């Protein structure tokens, strides 16, 4: 049984239909690379999965059970952690406070700042993120460091399904490799990961399966073991036959 399933998900913003009936699933312990052109609907799908948006239509299931997420808190309670494309950091607050945003550990009803600082430092060390002090406000950090802190938050929060929306976009080569090895670590721990990326090499490096979106629909799906970078790029730009392996309901024919 899939760990997570979205069936027939639609989401409209005013005149724009960002998701036009998406079917998407993630097996336990699987790493899925979600790809597609700008505006294909990847971030919107991630936000539906993590409870930030409510789908207009369609069903979300976790371990086979239908779920209605009214907020990211509901999804987090179901074991879904997320890194948003826009990171979602509070600039004025410290690194530690941002790693624990909305999930501050408490002791005797009070926020346990000591534990927050210690655990934040621990996650940063694991991810090999170099930040002089976890007391620094994140406003003073570089784009890459900020991205790492958002990732650190999702990693620390844990959960069975980790969503990463373009986690390597603003990173240097070394930090990109850190994130990729982090994704492998997560899989070793038995967690499922959905990683949105425009980098085919990265996706082929860490993912088990590639899902390609186009114009608000899933337009193709490939097992990484049985595909090439050229084929995936073809799917993304939309000029290759998009016959999906396991019978995805949508073909490029209806998209053309």
């Amino acid at each position, binding site marked *: 049984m899939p760990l997570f399933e979205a069936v027939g998900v639609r989401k409209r913003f005013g005149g724009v239909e960002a998701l036009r009936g998406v079917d998407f699933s993630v097996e336990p312990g699987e790493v899925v690379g979600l790809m597609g052109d700008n505006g294909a609907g990847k971030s919107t799908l991630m936000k539906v999965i993590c409870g930030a948006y409510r789908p207009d239509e369609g069903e979300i299931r976790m371990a086979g059970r239908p779920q209605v997420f009214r907020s*990211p*808190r509901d999804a987090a309670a179901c074991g879904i952690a997320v890194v948003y494309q*826009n990171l*979602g950091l*509070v600039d004025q607050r410290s690194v530690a406070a941002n790693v624990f945003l909305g999930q501050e550990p408490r002791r005797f009803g009070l926020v346990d*700042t000591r534990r927050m600082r210690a655990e934040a430092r621990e996650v940063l060390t694991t991810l090999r993120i170099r930040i002089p*002090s976890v*007391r620094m406000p994140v406003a*003073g950090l570089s784009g890459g460091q900020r991205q790492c802190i958002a990732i650190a938050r999702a990693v620390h929060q844990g959960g069975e399904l980790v969503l990463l929306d373009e986690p390597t976009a603003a990173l240097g080569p070394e930090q990109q490799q850190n994130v990729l090895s982090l994704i492998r670590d997560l899989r070793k721990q038995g967690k499922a990961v959905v990683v949105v990326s425009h980098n085919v090499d990265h996706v082929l490096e860490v993912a088990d399966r590639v899902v390609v979106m186009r114009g608000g629909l899933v337009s193709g799906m490939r097992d990484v073991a049985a595909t090439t970078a050229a084929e995936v790029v073809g799917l993304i730009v939309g000029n290759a036959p998009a016959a999906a392996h396991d019978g995805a309901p949508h073909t490029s024919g209806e998209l053309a």
Partner: protein
Amino acid sequence: MTIQQQIAIAYRVDDSGGSLVRRLLGAREFGVLAATAVIFLVCAVGADGFLAADNLLSVAQQIAILGIVATGMTFLIVVGEIDLSVGSLHGFLAVELAWLVTKVGVPVGVAAPLAILTGVMIGVINGLITTRFKIPSFVVTLAALAALRGAALLLSDGVPIRGSRNEAFTHLFAGSPLPNVAAQTLWMAAVVAIGAFVMARTKFGYDVYSVGGNPSAAAGAGIASDRVKVMCFALTGGLTGLASIILVGWLGSANPLTGNGFELSVIAAVVVGGAGLAGGTGSVLGTFLGAVITGVITNALVLFGVDGNWQQVATGLLILGAVMLNHLVAKRSAHGLNA
């Protein structure tokens, strides 16, 4: 880069925040504290009678009302909202209390909690309108400012109402439990201490900073932003109720014009204390110092014999100066520590 290289470029990690002195100097409140000390000294040297015991006592009494309401306003401004109606609300709740006691005959032990409850309810209404209808809070509370002043005048027929003559009541809110320390001052000390603690150490305080700092990040992290905001409005309303009770206990009557323009002093105290009107920054301790500065300057202007109208000009200039200073500090502290 190899792991060896990474280790070679060892970098200093220090999560302790440094020595106590360094943390003190680095704290956002340090600038306000220094300013408070300087202004206090200037007044002590320059204004005759400033240091007289009864003058200091009356300054402390005036600061008490300001400090209590400004503590609530700190939560509101940090969460990214504002309440312009606190002055009118202060007047209305004072009139309500006196009216209940004198005209209706409600025991003051019931009427006083009712004033706080009314303040909380009006705060909740302001908050719900702001969050549900997505109307800026300065518009919503500007309307409340007008409506509540009208209500205070209607309820009192435009004339002051006598308050409670209950001795226990007067003693509790306006007595002098320690020599040279007024009850008001103790009430304010308690409110400021609890408020500072709640803001800095509780989950609610963290939520307030998060919602004010980046609303969409807070929502993305599952924080119920609207509820947090409404609670800040309610808190401000409740504390304004407490301030009205203290005022009625102190003066023994309620004037429907009480608190006219008070919102400006409150906002000045919060802003002077280091809070940014954009939300996400500020602290109760800073606000307390801001209230002291505002109170001391007002008092000094009186002692210097400055025309009352000039005091308003001074308040305005104080707000402007503080906002400009905060702007500079915010730029600087983006690269500093934030304990």
